[in-house]
């Protein structure tokens, strides 16, 4: 897979922010068809870091209803990437963007 198509964006929540601090784990929303290897490859190339491990799962979209009509938010694939000690991705650290 083309590395530019793999990562769709960063995923930042309270929980994941804690994981970043504690375990150097950075999370992304990735293409549903991307494999763990694709993600590792893309992160290493794009952010110039070394990846230690990748875990992925599909996050199921919530069903939402507005009055009578029922809808479903789309599913997406979440990838949690553990970096090698000492590496970091500035985008998540705050400060300069």
């Amino acid at each position: 897979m083309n590395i530019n198509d793999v990562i769709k964006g960063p995923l930042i929540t309270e929980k994941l922010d804690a994981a970043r601090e504690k375990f150097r784990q950075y999370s992304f929303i990735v293409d549903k068809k991307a494999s763990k290897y694709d993600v590792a490859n893309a992160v290493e190339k794009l952010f110039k870091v070394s990846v230690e491990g990748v875990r992925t799962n599909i996050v199921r979209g919530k069903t939402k209803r507005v009055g009578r009509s029922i809808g479903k938010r789309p599913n997406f694939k979440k990838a949690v990437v553990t970096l090698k000690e000492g590496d970091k991705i500035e985008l998540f650290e705050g400060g300069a963007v």
Partner: protein
Amino acid sequence: MKVQIEELSPIEKKLSIEVENSRVTEELTRAYTALGKQVKLPGFRQGKVPRRILEQRYREQVEDEVIQRVVQSAWLEAAREHKVDAVAPPQVTNNSGLKTDAPFTFEARVEVKPKVEAKDYQGLPLTRSSTQVEDKEVDDRLTQLRESMARLENVEGRDTAQMGDFASVDYHATVEGKDFPGSKADDVTVELAPGELVESNVAALEGTKVGEAKELDYTFPADYRVEDVKGKTARFKFTVKGLKKKVVPELDDAFAKETGEAQTMEELRGKIRADLEQGKRNKAQGEERDALFKALIERNSFEVPKAMVERTIDNMLENRLRAMARMGMDPRQLNLDFARLREDLREEATKEVKGALLIEAIAQKENIQTSDADVEKKLEELAKEAKQDISVVRKYFKGANEREGLSLRLREEKTIEFLKGQAKYS
């Protein structure tokens, strides 16, 4: 906080202010904490967004705000501490930006009240204007009153119109045999007096009897408001229906009562005289104040801050607009050229500001002060003048600002009295 003051001119100062880092940091923390409580971001509960992420997203906004706040408070503190008598908010330039490792610095340029040293204020030339009211002026005023209260009464025992009569007529006019707008009217009152027909003066009706008609030619003025007949000659036919004459009331006690001002003629005369005297006194006072200001300014030249002049112009404009509104005009509909109005007022405003500053300087030098008792006395006077209960006036001047203003005005009056006492009358 370190402050350096540089005097650019008697009316302008430059303050270079340096604010310690810790103070800035404190402000920043406060700003981010406040922001963090409000901000809603996906992935975070409200109030739980880490400062790091806030900084990433809102840095510019927060820093601008903090700079503004720090500048404001630092400036106020500096002005208070170093007794900078500012007349307007400062212009802030060259701020260093917030840095974590260096103090925050900025420069503020501000217009200050000049230190005025009044000199040569003894023996200012003044002309004494008379406030004496002549009997003739009273008579004139009475005649005016009489005229304004005249009534029209039917003429008895005579049916031929005379000069000075008022005739009730129907008329019909034609231009070249044709009617025009307003060419016909019934029951119009015209005066038999020399003058223009369009102003309801028709002398030619003299000798016409009631019930008779009279025809005459009349040429409209070239600037008449009806377009069709401008400068044209019309044939007018007047039918006289009745005669009236103007009856001017006799100058007696009954007349005095009717004016609603007094019970007897004697009293009315006295009242009119008092009014006229008051008017003259007021005018003389205004003139003397003007003359004093002018002379003072001639003898003491100094620069005045622009901001003070502008503010005075603002006040003057506002007063004028309010006066217009009182007279029933709508300033918004008059299409006023405010820029020009301001220019026109500038000279007067400058004079006013200079005068006020000089008066203040003199008052200080001569130790002229106003006490609370003076203010109270003035309040009573004002109440009497406005024919209001003193409690109403007191309510109006309850605020510290209003009271301060009144006290300043009193001091000016006192100082002017003092100057007058020293002036050379010619």
